[in-house]
């Protein structure tokens, strides 16, 4: 028979796993959205995505995703050498990428709104 504490621990672990899955599902949109205002290089994109929490994924795995987005014509890449340092590969949105990002953002908002409606009673009860 598990103690309350053990159950809580298990919950936390499960929630963490689920959150990781959520992040993965929204990764495409997250990457495209991070590039909305300006071109960024890999590490900068990762920092925007992590927003404080450490991503539990190997950092290198963002590059195949970026490569796929580039193949799909949604982003383009350019190597730029900073005056005082090494070359960096900057990614930016193409026109198609901007369009796709907006569509995804709209779909995302609709999705979140319907979930919010479902979750509202749960949240008010917790008080």
């Amino acid at each position, binding site marked *: 028979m598990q103690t309350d504490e053990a159950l809580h621990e298990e919950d936390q672990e499960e929630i963490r796993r689920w959150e990781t*899955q959520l992040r*993965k599902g929204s990764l495409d949109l997250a990457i495209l959205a991070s590039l909305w205002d300006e071109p960024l*290089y*890999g*590490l900068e994109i990762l920092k925007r995505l992590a927003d404080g929490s450490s991503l539990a*994924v*190997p*950092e*290198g*795995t963002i*590059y*195949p*995703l970026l*490569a*796929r987005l580039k*193949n799909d014509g949604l982003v383009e890449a350019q*190597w730029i050498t900073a005056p005082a*340092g*090494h*070359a*960096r*590969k900057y990614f930016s949105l193409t026109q198609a990428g901007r369009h796709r990002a907006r569509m995804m953002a709209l779909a995302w908002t609709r999705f979140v709104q319907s979930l919010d409606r479902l979750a509202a009673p749960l949240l008010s009860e917790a008080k």
Partner: protein
Amino acid sequence: MKIDGFDRFENFAQELRRRLRALPPEDLEELIAELRAHVQDSAGPNPSDEDLATALERLGSPADLAAVYAIDRLLARAEESSTPWQLLRSFVRLAATGVAGFSAFLGLAIGYLIALSFFLAALIKPFFPSRTGLWHLADDSYSLRLGLGDPSMPMGSELLGWAIVPIGLVGGLVAASLTRTFARACLARFRKSTNARLARN
């Protein structure tokens, strides 16, 4: 980067090159350049050996990265292929990735060989009519000849006559089309399992 750090990254890069040798070299080197720049940024200016070790660890193991990259890039290239020749070249690369890849390549090669045989039959008949055709031999076996070999007539009757030309053309087109469909199906299958693997990572 300091000499020690340089060794660390180069060891990592060599391991990655080894695991991703099925990739086109320019893709592989592009990737390594991306990762090198990433580590340089991640470890910061004038990094200690420990900084570099940490940066490399956060990057992911060569095994993790290779698993994610290899199939993804190969698939992308294969999906872009339009001619049978390009398709075959992409599948040759896929063949190196494992049993599934190899079987797919084999299927593709056999499919295109069959198509080629059909086309050859149609093309060669006008030039070597008496040596091209499908013979039913005296010993009840069949022999397909495409203009090569013994000029003396084999013992038996030729079954198709000039119909071999349209049969060859149509058969070739059908075989080529089926092979292409097979290739697409394989790619879709690989794509699915790759996405699953990306998600699991």
